[in-house]
């Protein structure tokens, strides 16, 4: 289960319920998630966004360009991070209502490429939880570090979501 290891944290989240933000989760990292980068899904993603560059769906082109396999597009880290039964588990843990969440900001820093066949380990840390307009807007910021099977840092990305009441 993709969830904080600390049982006290889990209990706090339950006691707080919806409506109260659990600031004690700021700075908490979550158990690592290891995901296989599926080539079929990369090709499907390329089709879904209307990608025309064969580096994203043709093995030969990607290898000729020096990649291990077809290349994951720049925003693909978020897709890997969603490869869990409940992508909203962390938001729920801090007390956000998952049915009212909107994604407000997303950023990436890039290091090594992510390619088909890679195995990526993601570690997410909640970096901030705060409110605006007297609680009408509740925000959570999290940062995820994605490392490949060679131990190389591939990307670090930051996501901000808001619950609008």
């Amino acid at each position, binding site marked *: 289960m993709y969830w904080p290891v600390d049982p006290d944290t889990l209990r706090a989240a339950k006691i707080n319920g919806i409506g109260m933000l659990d600031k004690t989760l700021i700075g908490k990292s979550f158990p690592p998630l290891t995901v296989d980068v599926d080539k079929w899904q990369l090709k499907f993603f390329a089709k879904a966004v209307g990608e025309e560059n064969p580096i994203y769906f043709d093995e030969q082109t990607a290898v000729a360009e020096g990649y291990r396999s077809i290349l994951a597009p720049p925003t693909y880290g978020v897709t890997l991070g969603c490869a869990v039964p409940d992508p909203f588990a962390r938001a729920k843990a801090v007390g956000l209502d998952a049915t009212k969440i909107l994604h*407000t900001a997303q950023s990436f820093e890039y290091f090594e490429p992510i390619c088909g066949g890679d195995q990526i380990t993601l570690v997410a840390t909640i970096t901030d939880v705060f409110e605006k307009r007297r609680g009408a807007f509740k925000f959570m910021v999290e940062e995820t570090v994605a490392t490949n099977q060679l131990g190389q840092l591939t990307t670090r990305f930051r996501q901000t979501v808001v619950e609008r009441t």
Partner: protein
Amino acid sequence: MKEVFFDQIATGEQLPSLTKPPITRTTLAYFCGASNDHNPVHIDSDFARAAGADDVFVHGMLDMAYMGQLLTGWVPQSAILSFGVKFGAIVYVGDTITCHGEVVDKTEQGGVYSFKLKLRAVDQNGESKLTGEAQVRVSPPRVSAGRTLNNQ
């Protein structure tokens, strides 16, 4: 893709813009499966209306993927150092997104030449939907350190 040189572009210049086809329900269904974002507000009109929206709306990450294509259509993906956006307004099914980029700063640090880009995506009415920034590496100036194009 043409190589982009540091000396070729001036601050204030625009990247070639990218207009994507209108976003259909089919687009959203594909992106739901492909992106692992299975939130029904993006694919199920009944659910979206029950949740208070007029209709299904577009995954923010689809808009960001389009903006990524503006960048990777201009420089190789490996040249993107950082890329960030803010999702300013909801994009609805049927909207047509156009992505724009502008060079706002040019930097040389330790032999690495890069541009800071200001990014903006608008719908068919010109309404701003997404804003952002990226830092991209570019090729060194063609004329530098006493070398000219002719003797390179």
